[in-house]
């Protein structure tokens, strides 16, 4: 099978660059798209903050449970 020639690659690359540039100019991101991005970033940020504020508490392992000191009797 013939390899792809450098001339073909170059022509297709030139086309790709020009086509994508022209496409980008005629299809800029709309306000609605920007809002979607902002909401997604904000949502992810809030999830991170929530996770920091309430770190998950691991249940005590059975081994640790055994080592745990018995609770003081309640003298009240």
């Amino acid at each position, binding site marked *: 099978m*013939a390899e792809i020639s450098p001339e073909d*690659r170059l022509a*297709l690359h030139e086309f790709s660059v020009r*086509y994508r540039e022209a496409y980008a*100019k005629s299809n800029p991101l709309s306000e609605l798209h920007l809002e*979607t991005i902002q*909401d*997604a*970033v904000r949502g*992810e940020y809030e999830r991170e903050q929530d996770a920091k504020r309430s770190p998950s508490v691991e249940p005590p392992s059975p081994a640790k449970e055994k080592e745990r000191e018995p609770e003081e009797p309640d003298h009240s």
Partner: protein
Amino acid sequence: MDDLIKLVRTYRLTAGLAERIRLAEQIFGLIGPDLHLFVFSHVSGPAAYDVFQEVLKAVAVSLKQFKGDTVKEFWAWCYRIARNKLNDQYRRQANDRLVPVAPEDLWQMMEASAQDAPMTPAVRHDLEYAMKLLTNSKPECYDLLWNHFVFGLDYADIATDRNMSYDSVRMKIGRCLEEVKSLVS
């Protein structure tokens, strides 16, 4: 393109919300149109708008989890996310072929591009040739040629998407190009 990976790296290290939003807007200013082209080339009609929104959301939410260090890796990651969202859509509508772009629409884009970067006769000749190759291929080849030569997906990315080996993809693209060259010559 170097700017893109710098922005992504900075985003990963940024803690403040306002700064993250500012960086995300810059990143999406660079990648948004290409993702738009990718999605709208694969899905048509109102579904394309929904898929594009889903892709933007998914990339924005996962931006901090991107692990790579190069622009190429970043694009591959973005297109993988877009491909996954497209696959969700295909499952709904049972169709996974690229939507062929009409040759006159391609010409219109080329004329628009010529206003910004004038074409020498040699460049115009090359572009006409490239457009003939891309618009005259059979559907299976059209998909591969666009993904590789226009969207810049490498053989490995396409192989992963299609569950094919790297060499099969490389040979198939070579064969597709040979076939279409024989048609247009």
